[in-house]
Every structure is written in structure tokens, then in C-alpha cells.
């Protein structure tokens, strides 16, 4: 267990270092090319720092996978990394951009770190150790009444007709329950952390990747919340579907109401 504490503390320090890279690029300009460069640079920085200290550990990183690395979660200690969650936000200087790092052993998440860089908010949790924001303990709202819930999700990330229809009809169904409101900040990691703080009661999304949510999932759980698949079954970070909620009741209610669209699993072998 103490080994994972070392990893956790190390994870926090390299996260903070990596966020300096975000600032560097923002000052210059913003184009899609530059963003990809920053994504890669930050991810490489994180991976080489970790490899240096823990040579036997494995990695699942957004940019490495994009470059063709095989994505498979094994029992080996594994770091799951998103160097810039909220890429569109980053390009526009819309102030929600996060570095997300989760660490698994035997396929179980041992800790998660989400650093919302512009806000300077560090969310983190270790399994069994609670969740924190800048050192202050976090608790979900505990809300059990769906009609008093504030819902967070993503809008407009879809590009095909079916996904778009399902996305809008999901929001429509929830909105007209009614719920108190629907919000969207543009990064799964930060959006999910709003559930952990109690500032929102439920987050759901279909289509994001394991690196977007692995860290915030344990943060929500350690804040007393519930994480599950959109069909109500057990959360599976490779499924590309998640509900994170203040209570089992609310999570279940949302699972009943929303539909998913088909998404290839993150760990599916390419054809």
C-alpha cells in the first residue's frame, strides 16, 4: 500500500509540472496543430518521468493510443493518462482544461488525479482514503430526488446523426422530468468532478474514453458517490459509457431514462 502512496505523491508532483506546459502554449497562439503538439509533449513528459522512476509500470495514454499503441488494461501497475482533457476548450481559452491521471493495479483503480489547470483546482482520491479538492475533503450532495438534480453532460461532441439524436433526446427527457437544470463545461474529467464536490448531482456521457474518466470515477466514488454504466450495470471504464451520481437512486433513475448509442470499446482489437 505504501508503494501506491509513493506513486500517488509522485503523480501529483508531475501533474503540476506538466500543467506548466499548458501555460507555455496558450501564450503563443492556438491552432489545432499546436494543440496536438502540446498533448504529445505533455504526455511524453509524464510518461518519461514515470518510466524513469517506475520502469516496470505500463501506460495507457491518449496520444500514445492515437499513435498506434495497443490499448489493454492488465494486472500490471498502469498509468492512464489524458494530457489535455478539454482540447476544444484549450484551443479557445475557455477556462476548463484538465490533466487526468489514474493508476490501476490488478485492473483496480488505486488513485485518481484531475488537475483543472486554469482554475488551479487539484481533485484527487486514493482508494479507501476519501476525495479532496486542494486538500479539502469532498462529499457528493447525496441528493436522492431526481427532480431536484442538477445534471452535467457534454453537448455537441457527436458528429453522426444517430449519436446526435440520442444525445439531444437524452437531454430532452431529463430536462422535462423536470430536473433543476443541465450544464456542460466541455471536459468529462472536470464535469464529473462537479458531482464529487456536490456542485452537481449527476454526470452522464457516452462516447468519451477511459483516460477521460478513470481518475474522476474514483474521485466521485471516494466522495461517496456512485459510478455505473449507462444501462445500470457495473461501471466499466473501457465501455465508453458512464453515469456518476450523488446516490444510487439518482444513478438508477438516469440509467432508466437515457439511451446509449453504439461505441467501440476502448480495449476492442482494431479490425
Amino acid at each position: 500500500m505504501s508503494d501506491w502512496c509513493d506513486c500517488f505523491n509522485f503523480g501529483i508532483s508531475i501533474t503540476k509540472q506538466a500543467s506548466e506546459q499548458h501555460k507555455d502554449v496558450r501564450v503563443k497562439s492556438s491552432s489545432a496543430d499546436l494543440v496536438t503538439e502540446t498533448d504529445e509533449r505533455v504526455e511524453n513528459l509524464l510518461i518519461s518521468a514515470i518510466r524513469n522512476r517506475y520502469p516496470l509500470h505500463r501506460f495507457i495514454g491518449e496520444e500514445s493510443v492515437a499513435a498506434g499503441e495497443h490499448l489493454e488494461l492488465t494486472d500490471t501497475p498502469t498509468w492512464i493518462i489524458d494530457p489535455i482533457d478539454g482540447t476544444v476548450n484549450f484551443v479557445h481559452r475557455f477556462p476548463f482544461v484538465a490533466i487526468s491521471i489514474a493508476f490501476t493495479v490488478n485492473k483496480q483503480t488505486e488513485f485518481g488525479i484531475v488537475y483543472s489547470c486554469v482554475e488551479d483546482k487539484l481533485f484527487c482520491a486514493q482508494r479507501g482514503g476519501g476525495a479532496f479538492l486542494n486538500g479539502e475533503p469532498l462529499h457528493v450532495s447525496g441528493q436522492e430526488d431526481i427532480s431536484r438534480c442538477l445534471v452535467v453532460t457534454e453537448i455537441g461532441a457527436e458528429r453522426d446523426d444517430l449519436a446526435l439524436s440520442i444525445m439531444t433526446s437524452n437531454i430532452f427527457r431529463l430536462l422535462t422530468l423536470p430536473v433543476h437544470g443541465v450544464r456542460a463545461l466541455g471536459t468529462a474529467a472536470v464535469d464529473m468532478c462537479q458531482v464529487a464536490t456536490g456542485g452537481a448531482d449527476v454526470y452522464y456521457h457516452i462516447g468519451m474514453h477511459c483516460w477521460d474518466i478513470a481518475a474522476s470515477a474514483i474521485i466521485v466514488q471516494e466522495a461517496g458517490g456512485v459510478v455505473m454504466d449507462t444501462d445500470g450495470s457495473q461501471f466499466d471504464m473501457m465501455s465508453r459509457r458512464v453515469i456518476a451520481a450523488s446516490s444510487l437512486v439518482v444513478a438508477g433513475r438516469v440509467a432508466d431514462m437515457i439511451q446509449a448509442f453504439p461505441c467501440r470499446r476502448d480495449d476492442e482489437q482494431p479490425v
Partner: protein
Amino acid sequence: MADQWQNAMDHAVAIARKAGEVVREALRGDRKVMTKSSSIDLVTQTDQKVEQLIIQSVKERFPAHRFIGEESVAAGEPCDLTDQPTWIIDPIDGTTNFVHAFPFVAVSIGFCVDKKVEFGVVYSCLEDKMFVARRGRGAFCNGEPLKVSDQEDIKRSIVVTEFGSNRDPDAVDRIFSSLRKIVCLPVHGVRSAGTAAINLCLVASGSVEAYYEIGIHVWDVAAGSLMVTEAGGVLLDVEGGDVDLMSRRIVAANNRAVAGQIIRQLNVFSPPRDDTLPSHE
């Protein structure tokens, strides 16, 4: 050249900051929630307290000035914009966010003379961001000048909008139909922070290219609307004509090119105007 409204503006900034402290203090405790026109049109004692705080302090300094305040109007005061110097106040823009402690809550104060907004103050309390705009003299956030984005292509734009608190099925249908068309343009993304005042400041800051909504009130947008124009942006009605702050409809964008592309997608409707006399039942 001396600015005859400088004192009023300084007062607005000071009282907005004070109001922000009241909001932050209230967030540390429980918030008792009431409803207004429907089960999701929320209001709290803090809304009412903050509005009174602002109105009282302004009345002491400027006894001849008039007011349009969200909670006063809810309590039966007329929503009547004359040529007189008028303070248009939303004590807590983002009340639903406030109830939940979702981090976007703003105090919004717009000041009109001859029915024109002379200055606007939006204090985003939890971010500690003081947005200020003075007609003809620019817009600022914590002293730094604001400038809209120079993006002309809607396909590379972020659009902000809200679903609002109107659950009338026809209105909701139109809201969703507009949203679908906007998303399909496609745009880079759609965001919802939950407060019109802050959404307008996001346009003024250049973080998003446009904001549109049907259903807001004059107190939500009076201050933020000046923020957008002073940062170089444009305001239009959802059908493309001149904006009318009492019409409950607004499109705010970095430029006419982007605004036009949004307007073409909107399925519009007309909520009862803010300056409509209430019907007596």
C-alpha cells in the same frame, strides 16, 4: 473629460463586490429554496437580501434614481424602463447554480439613462472576477481589457446557450430544434454554464464566439450586453433585427458573420415581454 456617471459606476462595483461576499457567505451554509413561477424557477432568501442591499445602498447615494430588480418585479413592482437613470439588478444570476453550489454565480448591475446602458457590472463571485464595461470606454475583467474572438467561421466556434426554466412543451421543442441545428453546423462545441450574465462575459472575453437564448430577462442581460459591445462584439435579436433588452431574446456574438450563421438556425418564439403589464386574474 469628467465622466458624470463615474461615481455611480464606482458605487456599482463596490456594492457588487459586497453582494458577492454575501453570496459566498451564504454558500457556506444551507440554502432554503423557494419557487416562483414553477417548480424549477428557484429563488432564495439570499436573492431577496442581496437585491435589498443593493437597492438601499443606491437609494442612499442617488435618491432620484430608479430601479428594475428581479425580486422586486417578482413582488409586483413594475418593470418599466423610462429615460430616468435606472439600475437594472439581478442580485444572483444563476440561482439554480447557487442552490447547488455549482461554481457560476454572478451579481449583475446594469445602469441605463435615456434607455441606453451607460455601464454594466457583472461580478462572478466564486471566480472573484469583476467584469466592468463603460459605454465608449471599453470592457475589463479585473482591470484587464476584454476583446472578443476574431473567429469568422461558425464551424470553428464555441456557442453557449441555456435550456432555461420554461418547460412549456412548445418552447422546449423549439429550444431543442435550434440546438440540434447549431450542433449539426457543426460547431466546435456547445457549452452551458447556467448564467446569462456570465455567458455574455464569456463572449466578451473571447473564450466563446457566441451566446444565444430565448427566455432571459432584462436584468440578466443589461450589464453583460454592454460588456459584449464594448469588447468589440455585436448584439442582435434572434430574428436578426436590433436587440431589444425587454424582448427576452438575445444573440450576442464576436461579429456579424458568426451571429448571422447562428440566427439562421434558430427556431424562434416570443415569451411575454418584460415590459408587458401583468394580467390581473
